[in-house]
């Protein structure tokens, strides 16, 4: 069992690392405004799939790393990810039964809440200066959720993580 646990941890960190790379990558500069928050999608998946292994504290630490990665105030993403992770773990039984469309609605709400919190903290620093494009990642994140879900489930089934 401990070997399996180890493998699960490795896969978990590999996917999170991949999501972080995708988060800051800018392959097509014109598409940057649509780049969704990949990390939160991966976090939602793992908290639905492995709620007993994965907790609010790990989401908080990953959020802290994301803050440093993207140069935000320390604690901003930590707060957001901990909240989202808490709700996903709370609802994981229901979420597993949901059809894809309903899952997308849940992801949309999560992303919208997270972007609203960012909006709040950014406005706290300096007036209202965020353009409409600030909200695009919410939509694009919702649209790529099925893809993330399928890919991560494939990885999880291949690695036989339960």
């Amino acid at each position, binding site marked *: 069992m401990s070997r399996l646990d180890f493998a699960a941890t490795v896969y978990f960190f590999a996917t999170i*690392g991949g999501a*972080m*790379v*995708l*988060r*800051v*990558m*800018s*392959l097509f*500069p014109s598409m*940057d*405004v649509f*780049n969704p928050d990949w990390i939160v999608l991966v976090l939602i998946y793992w908290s639905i799939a492995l709620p007993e292994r994965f907790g609010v504290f790990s989401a908080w630490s990953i959020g*802290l*790393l994301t803050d*440093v*990665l*993207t*140069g*935000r*105030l*320390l*604690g*901003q993403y*930590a*707060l957001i990810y901990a909240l989202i992770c808490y709700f996903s773990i709370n609802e994981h039984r229901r979420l597993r039964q949901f059809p894809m469309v309903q899952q997308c609605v849940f992801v949309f709400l999560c992303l919208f809440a997270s972007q609203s919190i960012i909006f709040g*903290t950014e406005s*706290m*620093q*300096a007036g209202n*200066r*965020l*353009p409409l*494009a*600030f909200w695009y*990642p919410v939509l694009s994140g919702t649209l790529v959720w099925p893809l993330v879900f399928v890919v991560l489930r494939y990885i999880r089934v291949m690695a036989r993580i339960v």
Partner: protein
Amino acid sequence: MLVIDYRSERLERLRSLLSVFTYPLQSLASLPVDFYQTVSGTVISFVELQKENRRLKEAQFVNDTKLLKFAALEKENTRLRMLLENSFQLGEQVLVAELVSVKLAPYEHTVVVNKGSRFGVHPEQPVLDANGIVGQVVRALPSSSEVMLITDPDHAIPVQVNRNGLRTIAFGTGQPNRLHLPFLANNADIVPGDLLVTSGLGGVFPAGYPVAVVDKFEARPDKSFANIYATPKAELDKSREFLIVWSHSTPVVLGEPGKAPVEPEPKGAENVAP
């Protein structure tokens, strides 16, 4: 925690520590773009190389000739300063930093460069490229630092019109290649084509570097201030190498007018220059 980070510097150590983990991820993210740049730089036609070589040689020739004069001018400047008994000289040293192709937040004009506090970079340092002011360092991590461009909506830079010394402030607009000058009256002496240079006020940017060229003057009869827009001189979206500048005023030793004055070398100029 958010408030502590916003109001004080106490969490900087934690941030530096965590950046040890995030910097490899950033480098990894910038790999594909760097690779593309390298390939497109390698696969360049012979004719184009020849053309570029000729152009560079010509530019080098012109610059050399200018430099010849520059040495004489520098001496003359020191002499004149001696007459004025103004013994301060702006010593500047630079560090070349390369862009890491990552996008932190799409709604901000902030870029990451690959030199950090290990090289002595600190916040509020001006950053230039070959054509003009790029922005300023806002946060220095051990091996990378974040540079806010002058087009960021949060950024303002004190400038003056090169032609007549009219001083004002240029704000970023959030659009690439656009600056806004909101504090000039409708009858201000400024026309499209005027070069804006840094005025040196505010203490962050050294004086005299080109910032932008005015491209639109829009008088508003109903308001007291005109709408003026300018295009940055620096190629903000194309440059991949930036110069981080240390500027400090060091006193010049005033010698006799007959013999050449000895100028103290800025400390560490050799080991910082790449």
